[in-house]
């Protein structure tokens, strides 16, 4: 659905994106992670046809963004991190304005506006002036505008930054709903814990370079070949320790807080076998857990926290 090749973006002497290649399939929710100034907003603005890259090719749904931007516009819904709305318009007027801008037929316009307002829980503010809305409501209205023309691709730049906790939960559910509908979503966010919940793939961007990208599980496995294993048993842990010491994949076996911990180099796929072996050897296992790093830990580990 999105195909980027050799993308480069320079602002004067600053290189915001450097030789970026990326493919995002249809139906994926791709999370873009990186520190401020890593190039996330630049990448999203290029995809939204708002910026022309210095070099490279970008395709959205098979259309070259640089050659035919007008053809790409109905395909994308875009929400920027900082935006303004027309303060004097009413909520429904704002959506109606963009519905007309996307050439939505009169017969469908009203229904789509109602659906979009319902989706972002703003129907009770339908006739309110935009200047009366809170920051979170504005964020939702902007999101409704991005969904109005039923785009195949959603480009969301820090979309949840102004939302309260309840709004974030709603937003997360909304993204999951969109994923279920087969929409492709490219989302940038700093809240990495939330990203793991709804992203199917992620890309880590730093100093304009994509330092890692792929499915969340694959990245976790790739970036974390060693697993921290914690096993709790009933009674003395000596038999378990002896067993683990015999396993070549187990290293640094140690007792901590009445639990046995070790580094497991055998990969996730060998863990069921180990578990079965322990049970068949009569070890009374209470818990068997893999303390894997989460996305935040992985990001903090591999990122140099540099900006372009």
């Amino acid at each position, binding site marked *: 659905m999105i195909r980027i090749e050799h993308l480069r973006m320079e602002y004067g002497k600053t290189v915001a994106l450097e030789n970026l290649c990326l493919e995002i399939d249809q139906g994926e929710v791709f999370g873009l992670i990186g520190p401020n100034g890593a190039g996330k907003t630049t990448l999203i603005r290029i995809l939204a046809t708002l910026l022309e890259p210095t070099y490279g090719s970008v395709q959205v749904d098979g259309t070259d963004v640089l050659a035919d931007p007008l053809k790409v516009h109905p395909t994308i819904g875009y929400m*920027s991190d900082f935006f303004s709305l027309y303060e004097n318009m009413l909520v429904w007027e704002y959506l109606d304005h963009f519905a007309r801008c996307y050439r939505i037929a009169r017969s469908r316009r009203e229904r789509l506006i109602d659906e979009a307002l319902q989706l972002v829980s703003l129907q009770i503010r339908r006739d309110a002036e935009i200047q009366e809305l809170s920051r979170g409501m504005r964020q939702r209205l902007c999101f409704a505008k991005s969904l109005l023309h039923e785009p195949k691709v959603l480009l969301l730049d820090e979309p949840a930054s102004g939302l309260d906790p309840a709004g974030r939960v709603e937003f997360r559910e909304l993204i999951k709903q969109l994923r279920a509908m087969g929409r492709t979503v490219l989302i940038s966010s700093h809240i990495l814990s939330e990203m793991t919940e709804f992203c199917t793939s992620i890309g880590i961007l730093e100093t304009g370079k994509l330092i890692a990208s792929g499915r969340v599980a694959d990245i976790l496995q790739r970036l974390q070949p060693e697993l921290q294993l914690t096993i709790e048993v009933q009674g003395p842990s000596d038999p378990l320790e002896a067993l683990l010491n015999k396993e070549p994949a187990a290293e640094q076996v140690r007792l901590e807080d009445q639990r046995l911990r070790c580094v497991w180099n055998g990969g996730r796929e060998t863990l069921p076998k180990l578990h079965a072996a322990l049970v068949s050897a009569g070890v009374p296992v209470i818990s068997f857990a893999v303390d894997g790093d989460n996305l935040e830990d992985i990001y903090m580990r591999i990122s140099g926290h540099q900006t372009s």
Partner: protein
Amino acid sequence: MQPDFWNNPMVVSAMRLRYRRGSPGLTSSLYLMALVGLGGVLWYYAHRFPMPVGRVFLIAILGIQFALSGLIAMSCVAGSIIGEVTNRTLDFQRIVSLSPREILMGKLIGEPAISYFLAISTVPLAIFCWLWGAAPLWDVAWFYLNLATFTLLCASLGLINTYVANPQAAGKKSSGAGMTIIIFVVTIQFISLRSGGVLDSAWFDTIIGLLTPIDSLRELARGDAWQAEIELWGVGVPSLLAAPLAQMALAGWFVATMSRRLKNPLDPPVSKRGFYGALLVFDLLSAGICYSQGLLGVGLEQIASQFALAHLIATLLLLLGTVPNQAALKSWVWRFRGQQSWIRDSCLAGRAEVTMLLPVACLLGGLVLVVGLVAPTVAGNLPNGLGGLARPMGEIWLVTSLLLLALGMTHQMFVALMEKGGVLFYLLLVAAANALPPLTASLVENVRPQGALLGLDGLALSLSPIVFFVTRAAPSSRGATDPSLLSVAAVGLLMFSFFAFRRWLRRETVGVSDKLRQMGV
């Protein structure tokens, strides 16, 4: 482009907001009442006017309405565009299914809504004036057509703005300093030309006749608005007929230009094809005006100088919108260089350098000069041919071409070498090149008379491009300046700017090739 402007979202939203903020009916009623009051005052003092009071009233209504509509249209459209850019709402507009032209047409028609209501409210009064014998109905109808096209022209002027938000100036209103400097420099140049008698009043009459209703209203006061004419090749075209066409054409050109800007801010506003087209139209108009001057007895050398100066000014003004800036040139080097021949790129590609465009502009001007001015003048007025005029004519065109090449190339060099402020430096250079030599000559004459005896004042004067044209277009006792020094200076400037620009371009090209190699492309 959708022809139904009234369904354009920009128009619909603008009308909705206008209706909500205040009733246009109330504003129009108050305006109508004020005009009726004015009519009463005029009727009271009717005996003091040398023409029927109905006509005075009609001229007053039209004059006020033209001024109001023009101002409202320009300020509303400019305000809307500046607001969209500074508030960053334009980004969402740029990614909808409407083309940039549709967006700008929507702005053009929707934003000045109140000026339409005001104009419509004056129609009953205009009909009343017709019944009062102020002017034939046909004339009144033509004036209202003029009003519509004049309003559109003013609205299209409001579109001329930057469409890229400056991150450092978020929320701040644009000061418009750049545009003010350009307008100031151009105005000063025009005033000096006018006061020096270089550009005859025919030029200003034509500009005013084509772009404003002033001439037609003046003739209406004298009894017949159709007497206001624009003389082209000796043929008088009524201003009431020509003005709507010229105004619509210019408004369309502004919309096309700014649509390019909105579509991609990296593209220069005026395409190279647009540059040639606009220059050709301007040169033809100039030739028509100059030929008409010739019919009135002005010498061929003088009118050729006027034509050459007008061509030079028009080319340099058009280049302000055509020369690609540093970012556009870099983009061309990265993405387009080498895909077509250099000559084709330089002649036609929007973001490519203007090196070849400049000689084409010289050729185009030369062609129009010969075909549109010299040939008909020689055939009509000089049955013995050009005779002794060939040399001065050649001299004028050679110097004009050298100046055009030198200044055009310098412009390109400045904007390529400087990321910001290149145009300002270039304009200052042009202003200095025109103003400093006469100032120096004046100083030599007044402070160091011995210098004047040595001819230093003449030498200094001959370095000024404007003096070169002034002394030929409006001959004085002092005589025409020697073109050699100016030509040498122009060639020197051309060589310097050409090589400085090529050096920059070579460095960029090598840098880009290295980066592409590193990227594995």
